[in-house]
């Protein structure tokens, strides 16, 4: 079990460019989450899938951010027209089902210059 895998580990984009972050959840886990971590805001929930279906995207900025889970083995978080304030560590996590241990990936550090 390699755990939750996130790629790339680091990404630098220019202001206005698009960034796509990838996540491979643990095999057999039905719940997949995306979080964002910054010094100022801490850990912020972004969005959540259950069995690949989007369940709750209440934390997603309405413009420029989108997340998909085309199959059970990967999810993507796409940020269009990146801005400096998007710079953060983006964490993907998965769990077997709700209210069970949530396993986090090592994160993707996005820097927008």
């Amino acid at each position, binding site marked *: 079990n390699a755990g939750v895998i996130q790629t790339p580990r680091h990404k630098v984009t220019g202001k206005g460019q698009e960034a796509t972050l990838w996540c491979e959840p643990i095999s057999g886990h039905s*719940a997949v*989450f995306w979080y964002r971590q910054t010094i100022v805001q*801490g*850990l912020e*929930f972004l969005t*959540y899938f*259950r069995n690949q279906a989007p*369940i*709750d995207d209440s934390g997603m900025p309405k413009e420029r951010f989108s997340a998909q889970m085309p199959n059970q083995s990967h999810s993507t978080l796409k940020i269009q027209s990146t801005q400096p304030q998007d710079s953060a560590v983006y*964490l993907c*996590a998965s769990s077997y089902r*709700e*209210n069970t*241990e*949530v*396993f*986090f*990936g*090592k*994160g993707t550090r996005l820097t927008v210059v």
Partner: protein
Amino acid sequence: TQTVSQSDAHVTVFEGDSVELRCNYSYGGSIYLSWYIQHHGHGLQFLLKYYSGNPVVQGVNGFEAEFSKSDSSFHLRKASVHWSDSAVYFCAVSGYNKLTFGKGTVLLVSP
């Protein structure tokens, strides 16, 4: 709405001391509480959880936490800390699905 409050931003202790990291929550329904540890430059690692049953739960590396419904608390404790316990500790609450995290407590263990 679920909220988590970790009242201590920083805690400094000496190696071998006991420590308690405080966590208070607010949520109206059935609750799932957990603690995570994050070492500098690393991801979040699960420490322990409470969902029901014995309010004192044991975790990895000698950590334990006690759930109190009357105090709306889920404090984390360790009897004797090691320098390697220096990290940021996050308390989290979940009603059914997503975790809501506190701001974290930085634990520094001095030799």
